[in-house]
């Protein structure tokens, strides 16, 4: 049985047609039977899952009110702390660390809402990549086409939802690591505003750019989960103290009254025909006719690249000195080079970040929502080193994030909605709003879903 939607779980539990224990067992059975060729999980937590499910069943039998996510199976990218499990961040380097002594804050909040954690998910080592081709833990393959990558770095998070193993998952996004795998696997994803969700208990990569957020099979589920994750947290210095802004009850409001435009220029230049068609399709459905330019987007992507290299290289420098052989070969030299960058480059990039933030704010004076492709193309083949993009040969791994990096660079909230190409392959569009307006992103994603244009590519049955 593939994972049910959150609403279906709630209805089935309320009707007594299924127990939380049965939901957990179904998820665990499906993972055991079908994750072999996908490799979305790096750890499964059956004892914990059954204990959490039993607690839900006991509460229900006792007539207690159940949490909004009661009995819903989910999993998290393996950079989130899970009590009793070593936090890997995709890296052999961290295997020797002791198990986490407490859950990450977001997992604690999901537990309070009744959700059932079934395991930890594969990712690019350190979150430094867009393909989840991990030398140590294997390549996470795309459930829609196992010859292709799931995207990254939260590849396991998107693949586990697309494979129907779990109803939702958590991932992180520094330069596109929620939006890229959402696009490639065909699921909904939300990268909230920078600082909206606490990162406490999530292993850092680039602290000034790291975001965390959910994946789900529908915009409705995405909003329900996101609402449970919100709230201040003194353990994350970047986490906002703004009031919680619940979204789920408003996602059906439609897009009437919203001023919507498509991002042109750079976002067309680095998108292939499939990606441009997806953005155009979404624009038509949402009634957007204007095309606007986000000035200096190419420089913004470059600045994000510099900041990423510098902060991540500095973070790992001591271990590069002492344990270089344990590093992921696909990332090691990039990290060393990053540690060598002049401070002047890094600081110029951070100053440019302020400039770009102000330029984007001017665009949002005239628009509430911007549409752009999430990825330059559909999922690439496993092992591919280069690809052609509008006639230009580019390296695959750094180029997949071309369209996401300028947006996360200034922390804008983005929902990724899954569309299909003419021949049925998943490809996502970014629905981008002004800071703190996740509600607008989610309304647009829901509107595309209602229009029959966005639909998750949940694979009913996987074959080895």
């Amino acid at each position, binding site marked *: 049985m593939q994972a049910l939607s959150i609403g279906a779980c709630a209805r089935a539990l309320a009707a007594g047609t299924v127990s939380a224990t049965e939901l957990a067992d179904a998820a665990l059975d499906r993972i055991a039977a079908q994750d072999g060729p996908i490799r979305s999980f790096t750890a499964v937590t059956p004892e914990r899952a059954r204990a959490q499910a039993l607690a839900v069943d006991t509460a229900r039998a006792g007539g207690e009110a159940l949490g909004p996510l009661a009995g819903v199976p989910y999993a998290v990218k393996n950079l989130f702390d899970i009590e009793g499990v070593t936090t890997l961040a995709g890296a052999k380097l961290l295997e020797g660390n002791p198990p986490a002594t407490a859950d990450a804050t977001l997992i604690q909040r999901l537990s309070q809402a009744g959700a059932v954690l079934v395991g930890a998910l594969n990712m690019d080592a350190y979150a430094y990549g867009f393909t989840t081709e991990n030398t140590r833990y294997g390549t996470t393959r795309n459930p829609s086409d196992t010859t292709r990558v799931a995207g990254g770095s939260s590849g396991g998070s998107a693949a586990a939802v697309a494979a129907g193993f779990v109803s939702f998952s958590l991932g992180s996004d520094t330069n596109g690591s929620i939006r890229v795998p959402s696009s490639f696997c065909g699921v909904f994803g939300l990268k909230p505003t920078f600082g909206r969700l606490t990162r406490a208990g999530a292993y850092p990569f680039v602290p000034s750019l790291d975001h965390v957020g959910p994946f789900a099979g529908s915009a409705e589920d995405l909003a329900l989960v996101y609402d449970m994750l919100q709230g201040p947290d003194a353990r994350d210095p970047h986490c906002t103290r703004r009031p919680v802004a619940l979204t789920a009850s408003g996602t059906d409001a439609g897009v009437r009254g919203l001023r919507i435009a498509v991002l042109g220029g750079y976002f067309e230049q680095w998108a292939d025909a499939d990606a441009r068609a997806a953005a155009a399709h979404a624009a038509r459905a949402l009634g957007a006719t204007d095309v606007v330019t986000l000035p200096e987007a190419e420089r913004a992507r470059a600045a994000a690249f*510099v900041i990423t290299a510098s902060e991540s290289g500095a973070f790992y*420098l001591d271990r590069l000195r002492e344990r270089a052989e344990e590093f992921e070969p696909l990332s090691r*030299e990039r990290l060393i080079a990053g540690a060598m960058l002049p401070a002047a480059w890094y600081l*110029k990039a951070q100053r440019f970040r302020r400039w770009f933030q102000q330029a984007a704010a001017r665009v949002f004076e005239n628009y509430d929502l911007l549409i752009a492709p999430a990825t330059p193309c559909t999922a690439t083949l496993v092992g591919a080193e280069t690809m052609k993009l509008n006639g230009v040969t580019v390296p695959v791994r750094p180029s997949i994030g071309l369209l996401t990096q300028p947006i996360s660079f200034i922390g804008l909230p983005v929902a990724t909605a899954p569309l299909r190409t003419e021949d049925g392959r998943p490809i996502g569009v970014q629905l981008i709003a002004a800071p703190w307006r996740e509600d607008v992103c989610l309304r647009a994603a829901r509107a595309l879903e209602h229009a029959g244009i966005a639909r998750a590519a949940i694979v009913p049955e996987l074959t080895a």
Partner: protein
Amino acid sequence: VSPDETGLGPYVDAMSAVHDLPLTSARRDEVIVQLARIRALAALVNDFELDDHLEPAPQFIP
């Protein structure tokens, strides 16, 4: 571009010494290639004129 053509070899050697991070020959070459890629992108940012009063984005909140 080969590592030698980047002109970054002496810089990488100096930074390797500063960081006390010895590099094998093969690793040194790959670091140079990666650094050249970052330098090309950094040039886009470094060439952009900014107002002197524009402060870096991160904010320290005591």
